[in-house]
């Protein structure tokens, strides 16, 4: 899932300072699971904003709605009849959701309430870890299911570097060395031959905005 964390309160407050009526739009998918921008977080943030602005003698009227997925047109429709009543939209979705909202309502200021952080896993309640940088050419098949792009501090394709320290990365005694783990896992699977060959330089496909059209589908002429 995509993991985000809420922006510092004062930053959100300052983004909203010129608006009197703001609709806070949550997202019911990734950011809800990682406890950053679901229905509950929308309610909490609205209450905080309401209180803070009252104290400043500059009250704000906060509306609330949480859609199933902000990155999906189908679920944004529900907002069409609402947005006109507001000066600005605050979004608690990931960066993609926020942009999709802004794209749909180009005349409205759309402001982010979260910092989108990574694609990661749920290790426990409130505890998430990064696992993928969406490089567009996955090498997990060679690296024992451990991503060197994300998990190695230098993103090395042919590690480990000389800094690996008793199984930990040179950057931190508490950060496991990705390449040490890759080695251990492949060794246990008797697959070390996977990393005997040199992995050539990456094509870095994530340097421009990417589009995916699945086989059998076409990009419609008009949406």
């Amino acid at each position: 899932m995509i993991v985000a964390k809420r922006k510092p309160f004062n930053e959100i407050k300052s983004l909203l300072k010129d608006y009197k009526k703001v609709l806070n739009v949550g997202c019911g998918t990734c950011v809800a699971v990682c406890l950053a921008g679901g229905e509950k977080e929308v309610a909490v943030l609205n209450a905080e904003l309401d209180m803070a602005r009252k104290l400043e003698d500059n009250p704000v009227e906060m509306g609330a709605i949480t859609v199933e997925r902000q990155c999906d047109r189908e679920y944004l429709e529900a907002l069409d009849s609402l947005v006109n009543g507001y000066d600005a939209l605050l979004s608690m979705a990931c960066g993609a959701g926020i942009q999709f909202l802004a794209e749909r309502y180009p005349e409205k200021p759309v402001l982010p309430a979260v910092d989108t952080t990574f694609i990661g896993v749920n290790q426990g309640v409130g505890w998430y870890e990064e696992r993928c940088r969406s490089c567009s050419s996955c090498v997990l098949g060679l690296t024992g299911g451990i991503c060197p792009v994300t998990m190695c501090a230098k993103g090395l394709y042919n590690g480990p570097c000389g800094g690996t320290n008793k199984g930990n990365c040179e950057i931190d005694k508490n950060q496991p060395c990705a390449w040490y783990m890759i080695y251990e896992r492949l060794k246990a699977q008797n697959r070390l031959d996977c990393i005997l060959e040199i992995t050539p330089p990456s094509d870095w496909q994530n340097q421009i905005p990417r589009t995916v059209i699945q086989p059998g589908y076409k990009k419609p002429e008009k949406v």
Partner: protein
Amino acid sequence: MEMKSGSNLEKVLTAGHFAFTGELGPPRGTDAGEVRKKAAHLKGMVDAVNITDNQTAVVRMSSWAASIIILQEGLEPNYQMVCRDRNRLAMQSDILGAYAHGIRNMLCLSGDHQKFGDHPQAKGVFDIDSMQLIGMVKCMRDEGKFLGGTEIGHPPKIFIGAAANPFADPFEWRVHRLAKKIKAGVDFIQTQCIYNMDKFREWIKQSNDMGLTEKVFILAGVTPMKSVGMAKYMKNNVPGMDVPDELIKRLQGVDKKMQADEGIKIACEQIEEFKELKGVAGVHLMAIEWEHKVPEIAERAKMLPRPVV
């Protein structure tokens, strides 16, 4: 015999001499005089001098610029390049420029993580890694092509070096990593500072057994300890460093004033052993901020005079 680069280091090694290389860290400023002063200590003492590239991720005068200064002083640089600070475009253009100025040796490194340096907020580039950098320089030299595939006018003929750390985990993998670097096209290796001689002997034996030392020149890394404090610091704070307790005890066993001398003595004993050790083609002396001691070390280790080839 046809040379790959014709550098002094290549000629010394190819002729079968026991090579001796040194190291020089460029200044944190613009004073070329500082480079010349350090170079003066090394002149005639070593076959080539590594010029570090923003070592420990701290900004310094660029390594190609300092390399040119020492060329002017009549020394041969071993131009270090790390993957941390440049993408493939910048790397290749720097290599062209360096070669045009007479630089003939390169050391291809990943580089210490930027977190350690004076700009921990920097974006680490790591467009390619050290293994891929070796392959790129080889492709530029032997195929006369850029990584992107187009032809180079007057390809750079570089003697290609890389580092190896025989002590980092997993130990069993280290020799395979060396094999990978050879496959990528490396001509010579300079190792991490060696203090654990037993482990080094084991690594070089594995390399001999796999036939690797016939395909690459291995220069054993030596850094004399200046004090017990330095030894303890290296043991505890420098990632990938293996400092045995016996070495610390030996330094503790002499008077504080004599610790530096004892450090040099240990280094000379190591060098004596390396001269006899099958698979070791030379020594890389990293006398960090101790360049003025290099003549004494070279003398005491009986590395003088340097061969003229």
